[in-house]
């Protein structure tokens, strides 16, 4: 076991370190900051789903905010009206999101990239209005308020023993719920993408005709990708509703769908870690753009007021353009390229002209 640990690639150590930091986070930061990281993880889950669709299977969706809305309202209605246990509603929200996504994936097969983008965009635009119509069900414009869930007693006790600090808050509990859900979903995605479904999706992304010629069920995998990504978005939406404590038509505007797509691209399409980076990006960008920039004295006030007035949209757009030009594989792609360059430079000093085997045959592509 120890020898396996020693031979494990550096990547696994990095993952382990990140996992440990995420696990211990609530004990080291304030409850409020835990709630911020909960939102980061929620966006990461939604972006992971979008990544499966866009990065790995090559379809586009400008409407994943709608699936998040579906998941959030499922949880809100079940919890507030039918008094279902909130933890149970998370997978239910995912399943409903996934089912709707799968059904939407069927007509989507007929649409080429541009028209698929338009169709999903239409879905995002219509979502707030659609939510308002069935007033008895969704609460219409009043929205639905949810009480923050109390951590179960045994978790509170365990937390108190480990941290020896103030009582566990509902925000910290939701952080752990999100962390565990995210870890499970990431593991499922990682596994799926390593094996046959992942290879099939990548083949479809790189060329549908050769993929079909190789005997891959193109229609099946494309709808699977849609359904799976909608499942992830539904779960993320459910957690979003729980951690915010309030759902209303205005909490799922069109901008949300854009943010998810930009986050996926900036983080790095077709990577597993990308969504986590993308989630942090989506959460922190509006805050940096409106708060941090305006508080920096060295930025002239005309420039910072442009950022503040236009809102995060300007910064999203600017960063998207920069990333597309200089780092098309996103931040993760940039980091991986830098790491490879560094390693080859370090190795190059010792082994010149040696042909290197790819470090991990599983992750080709």
């Amino acid at each position, binding site marked *: 076991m120890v020898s396996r640990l020693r031979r494990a690639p550096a990547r696994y150590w990095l993952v382990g370190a990140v996992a440990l930091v995420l696990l211990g986070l609530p004990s080291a930061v304030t409850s409020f900051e835990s709630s911020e990281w909960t939102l980061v993880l929620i966006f990461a889950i939604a972006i992971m789903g979008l990544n499966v669709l866009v990065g790995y299977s090559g379809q586009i969706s400008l409407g994943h905010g709608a699936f998040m809305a579906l998941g959030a309202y499922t949880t809100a209605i079940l919890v507030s009206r039918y008094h279902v246990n909130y933890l149970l509603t998370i997978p239910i929200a995912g399943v409903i999101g996934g089912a709707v996504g799968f059904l939407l994936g069927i007509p989507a097969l007929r649409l080429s990239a541009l028209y698929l983008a338009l169709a999903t965009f239409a879905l995002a635009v219509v979502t707030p209005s659609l939510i308002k119509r069935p007033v008895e069900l969704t609460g219409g414009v009043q929205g639905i308020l949810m009480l923050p869930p109390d951590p179960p007693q045994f978790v509170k006790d365990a937390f108190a023993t480990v941290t020896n600090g103030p009582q566990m808050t509902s925000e910290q509990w939701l952080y752990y719920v999100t962390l565990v859900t995210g870890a499970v979903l990431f593991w499922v995605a990682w596994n799926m993408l390593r094996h046959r479904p992942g290879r099939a999706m990548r083949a479809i992304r790189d060329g549908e005709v050769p993929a079909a010629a190789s005997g891959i069920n193109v229609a099946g995998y494309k709808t699977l990708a849609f359904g799976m990504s909608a499942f992830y978005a539904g779960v993320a939406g459910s957690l979003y509703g729980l951690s915010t404590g309030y759902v209303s038509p205005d*909490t799922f505007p069109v901008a949300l769908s854009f943010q998810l797509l930009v986050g996926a691209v900036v983080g790095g399409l077709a990577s597993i870690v990308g969504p986590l980076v993308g989630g942090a990006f989506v959460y922190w960008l509006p805050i940096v753009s409106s708060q941090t920039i305006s508080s920096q004295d060295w930025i002239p006030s005309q420039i910072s007021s442009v950022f503040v007035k236009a809102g995060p949209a300007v910064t999203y757009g600017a960063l998207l353009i920069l990333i597309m030009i200089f780092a098309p594989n996103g931040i993760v792609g940039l980091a991986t390229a830098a790491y490879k360059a560094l390693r080859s430079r370090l190795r190059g000093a010792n082994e010149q002209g040696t042909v290197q085997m790819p470090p991990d045959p599983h992750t080709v592509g």
Partner: protein
Amino acid sequence: MTRLGPRSAAMVACLIALAACGGSGGTATDPGVTSNSILLGVTIAQSGPAAAYGTIANAANAYFTYVNSQGGVNGRKITYKILDDGYNPAQTVPLTKQLVEADQVFAMFGGLGTQSQTAVRDYLNAKKVPQLFVATGATTFMQDFSQHPYTIGWQPPYQGEARIYAKDVLANHPNAKIGVLYQNDDYGLDYLKGLTDGLGANASMIVDKESYDVTAAVPTLAAQLTTLKAKGADTLFIFATPAFTIGSLAIVTAIHWAPLEYVNSVSDPAAYMQIAASKGAKIDGAISVGYIKDPTDPQWANDAGMQLYQKVIASCSTCKPSDGFNIYGVAVAYTMVDVLKQAGSNLTRANVMSIAGSNLNETNPFLLPGVTVTTTATDHYPITQEEVIKWSANAWHLQPPLIDEQVS
């Protein structure tokens, strides 16, 4: 059974050490107050579709700057931290938590948006942080005081305003056929409820109501307005935010319709009416209500309150003095300072909330003469008096008397 290797044991030890560094000490005084400063916070839309409202917070800040220049409140200078939530309640929640838990504000003041403030109302009440003078007329913020004693509104409730319109219609146009165009959200629905309740048994005077979503493009309102005209309405109520009101007034004239128009107070600042007129709208005879002095009304040119406003607003470089939202911001900031002054040395959240919610009796220099800002143990509606105003010769003209509309 596996033993913890030295590396993993070190990691766990670090984790526990980090954890042990956590924990907070409590202080006896309320957060946000020091011997020479008071920190207030707000979330408001400064970008996105509702960005026009953002100037309210800047105007309020201008008033605080003025007060600070006069020595502050009992020797304390007010700092007002303004955060942009883009009118999205999902962003209001983390930003409010940031203000309360990270920035440790004394109170939230002037939060904007019915959905946004509803999203954080339970949280602020649970934490006993005052949610003062929210910038929305949604009736619930005043009506539900008993369930949420740390929340109080300021401006007249939309339902009360609509009841005044109902009274006006019943008194002066009892045979009117009423058409209603309303924004399909809490704001529009609140107005509609007030109108329907105010008409009471005569609610059948409403021949048709048409709604639109705030994400709609303004020209598409022609469809709803044409329908209302076709149903035979001769009186039109426009429960819409400024951009849509301006557009609707222009469209009504364009489709050759000349109903009696009732414009709501959110959209009635003279500047907006003049824009509508410049787009071809025939708006003479339009009716609204007012409770604040309009900066473009020449009758207040020598008024002490208006001159103070002009002096205060000059310190806000991005604020247009003619914008009705700005005098609103200054007026509500005046009330905020008044409450802080009344609290005196007992500057605790509980005391400030008790004054704001149940012990307010203020004459505000920026409001119409005779309008008072009052709260008592049984009345949690700070402002309920409004005056009917009629548009003619490119300006609003007050139609006394002041009407006091209580919404129970």
